[in-house]
């Protein structure tokens, strides 16, 4: 999932403390849910895209994300457009032929509702992607530690993430080695056949992981894990002046948005 992976950078959003960033994220998600008006959603979407531009998310990343989302988005859009019982009928998918039809009216309301859902999903996906692209995993853990997450669990999470690429490399090495012995991994058909083909890959991987965990356990002790029963967090999240400003700003936006909604604006 490269479009959710942390990318180092120097943008203002990279530098922001994780707390205002998470507040921003909540703010965007809440607003995207409470507003139903297309114009309002478009404005929220535009704000997210401007941030994406500031962070300089490469266009290729964005496009590859869109490629994956394309089918579900089309599905959601057509579902709303087809089945919403609106009043302003634009056209019929199946027109009247003599006494037959017309059926499947496409209404303006349906299309607008489809677009609403579409935008809402795009906003949520882009906002999550923006949050994770600009925030290293250890900031998330430091954030959770503020909520008294035990350090043992914090350690397990960090280590698990650290070893994903290692295990992936091991897996690829095994696949290559078995291919070099003539394994035809693509050609297998049927459930049993697939299991049979993958046993030579799963077993070396499992054994390798067990071997690694053996060293890992010893290396933990060699680094004094549990020696004192104490633990010092290396990353401590610290708010700068600007972070207080952002916190205030996002709270204000959220409050203003909810106020507008309560006054009946942006209901669609």
């Amino acid at each position, binding site marked *: 999932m490269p479009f959710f992976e942390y990318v180092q950078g120097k943008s203002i959003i990279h530098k922001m403390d994780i707390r205002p960033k998470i507040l921003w994220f909540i703010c965007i998600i809440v607003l995207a849910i409470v507003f139903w008006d297309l114009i309002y959603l478009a404005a929220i979407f535009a704000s997210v895209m401007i941030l994406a531009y500031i962070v300089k998310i490469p266009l290729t990343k964005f496009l590859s994300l869109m490629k994956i989302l394309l089918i579900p988005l089309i599905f959601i859009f057509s579902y709303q457009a087809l089945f919403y019982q609106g009043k302003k009928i634009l056209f019929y998918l199946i027109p009247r032929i003599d006494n037959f039809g017309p059926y499947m009216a496409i209404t303006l309301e349906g299309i607008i509702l489809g677009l609403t859902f579409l935008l809402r999903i795009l906003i949520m996906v882009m906002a999550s992607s923006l949050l994770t692209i600009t925030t290293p995993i250890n900031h998330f853990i430091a954030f959770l530690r503020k909520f008294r997450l035990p350090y043992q669990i914090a350690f397990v999470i960090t280590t698990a993430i650290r070893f994903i690429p290692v295990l992936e490399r091991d897996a690829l*090495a095994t696949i290559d080695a078995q291919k070099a012995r003539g394994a035809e991994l693509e050609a297998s058909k049927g459930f049993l056949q697939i299991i049979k083909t993958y046993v030579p890959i799963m077993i070396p991987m499992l054994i390798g992981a067990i071997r690694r965990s053996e060293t890992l356990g010893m*290396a933990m002790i060699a*680094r004094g894990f549990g020696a004192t029963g104490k633990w010092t967090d290396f990353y401590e999240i610290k708010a700068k002046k600007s972070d207080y400003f952002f916190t205030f700003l996002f709270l204000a936006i959220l409050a203003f948005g909810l106020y507008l909604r309560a006054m009946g604006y942006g209901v669609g």
Partner: protein
Amino acid sequence: MEKKIIEVKNLWYKYPKSDRPALQGINLYVKEGEFLAIMGPTGSGKTTLCLSFNGLVPQYFEGGEYSGKVIVNGLSASDTPAQNLALHVGMVFQDFESQIFGTIVEEDVAFGPSNLGLDRNEIMERVSQALLALRLKGYEKRETDSLSGGEKQRLALAGIFAMKAKILVLDEPTSQLDPFGREELFSAIKKLRENYKTTIIMVEHRSEEIAKYADRVIIMKNGNIALEGHPREVFSRPDLLDFGVRPPQVCELAFSLIRKGFFPRFFPITEDDFIFAFPKLPIKKKPTYNILQEKEEIIMVEDLHYIYPNNVKALNGISFTIKKGEIVAVIGQNGSGKTTLAKHLIGLLKPTRGKVLIKGFDTREQTTSKLAKIVGYVFQNPDNQIFANSVKDEVAYGLKNLKLSKEEIEKRVSESLKFVGLEGFENYHPFLLKKGERQKVAFASIFAMKPEIFVVDEPTTGQDYLGSENMMHMLLKLNERGHTIIIITHDMRVVGKYAKRVIVLDKGKVVLDGNTRQVFNEFDILRKCYLLPPQITRIGRDLSFKGEETVLTVEDMLSRIGC
């Protein structure tokens, strides 16, 4: 230097479920500030001895049998919790990948100090000190996974260093490193000793650096200390090979010269020693010519480019041809593209641009399983491929993929096991074999497929003297039978001794391609690629053997000196 910081008294240890004690009555001391090297064949107890220093033996393994005493800095290693001993003895394990816990460099170095519950400022201080000491300054925010092997190795060391232990134990720290990474590691260790008076204990197979840097060497055999002394004392023993340890090439040369009646002023153990040890040698200058026979081309690589999916350009326009029956070494520092190139030869990777022809077949139009009939690829780590319940089934796997008849499979399995010297092991469980034997099983499983070309990735890495000797003899034998051999290696001694031709890669390009003598003559170009010819070639260079006179092996040198 006089204080004994570690004392081992009559130490015996047997692992749980093992039938033979790994350590059998070890008596040893280590002086404060000393550099002690531990050498010896695989399975002689080197790692177990190291683990006894920081208490992991016996504490980590349930049900082992331990007797004797290990005193570290006044503490009993078997009774002090290993976590607490970590403050006195830091250990870097052989598999450096498995001891990096953080995703970011500074976070990983901070892991140890964090466990000690130190003050955050103190941790910061230690992290920057450790990174400076291990020459990783500027790497603070790098992702650990993006580091090279050499950098990861030094990071593992930095993480231990940040614990401020006075003793550092390193288990085969250089086995995965290229010559440049090795040099970096040794000079970092030298600095640690100068600045912090750190005691160093290192397990190592290669004797060259040990001769240069260590104060004392012990050689282990079957759980015992077989030899002990100053490197000069140990490496000057003519019977050293019987202990499964190969001395530096300069020592091998000295032995031969002594046998021919030239006596040195003192016994040389480093290349700088040589000239002073043998100041007056009769030097005959006679060039050696390699005669290349014209044979059919079996591999053709034409303007090969390869770009990884993450846009890393690994190969930038590589062209060469390899003739049937050649024995070629591909060398280059880590990340130069050697393995990427090798994977193209069996179609595991397909060219982004350009083409690779194997016996006339374009690899883009062939699956790897088809090419596997022509090209045998022997991977570095046998554990990435071993899965079967018996040695026999493991070797048969490739043959079943080739859809051979049952009789043919049986015939080939026994042929292959005979070739690698594992007759009688048919029904053994491969996981229960020793590492060297697992390597042989992996080799047999490729041999059984009867490929014309063998591509071998790091045949001698992490192997002891006998293991690498064995491997290279098998490859030579195959070459004599007409097989084409391509080795990818960091081991320059192996290149000098066995390869007829060398291809040097740097940044995805061919920098040098020629017979081994021509290539090893190009000191400056090799230096720029962070490569160094073998010690014997360097000694030859000091004696001004250049060009066609470039020395490749000890025998080569003897013939030059008029022996």
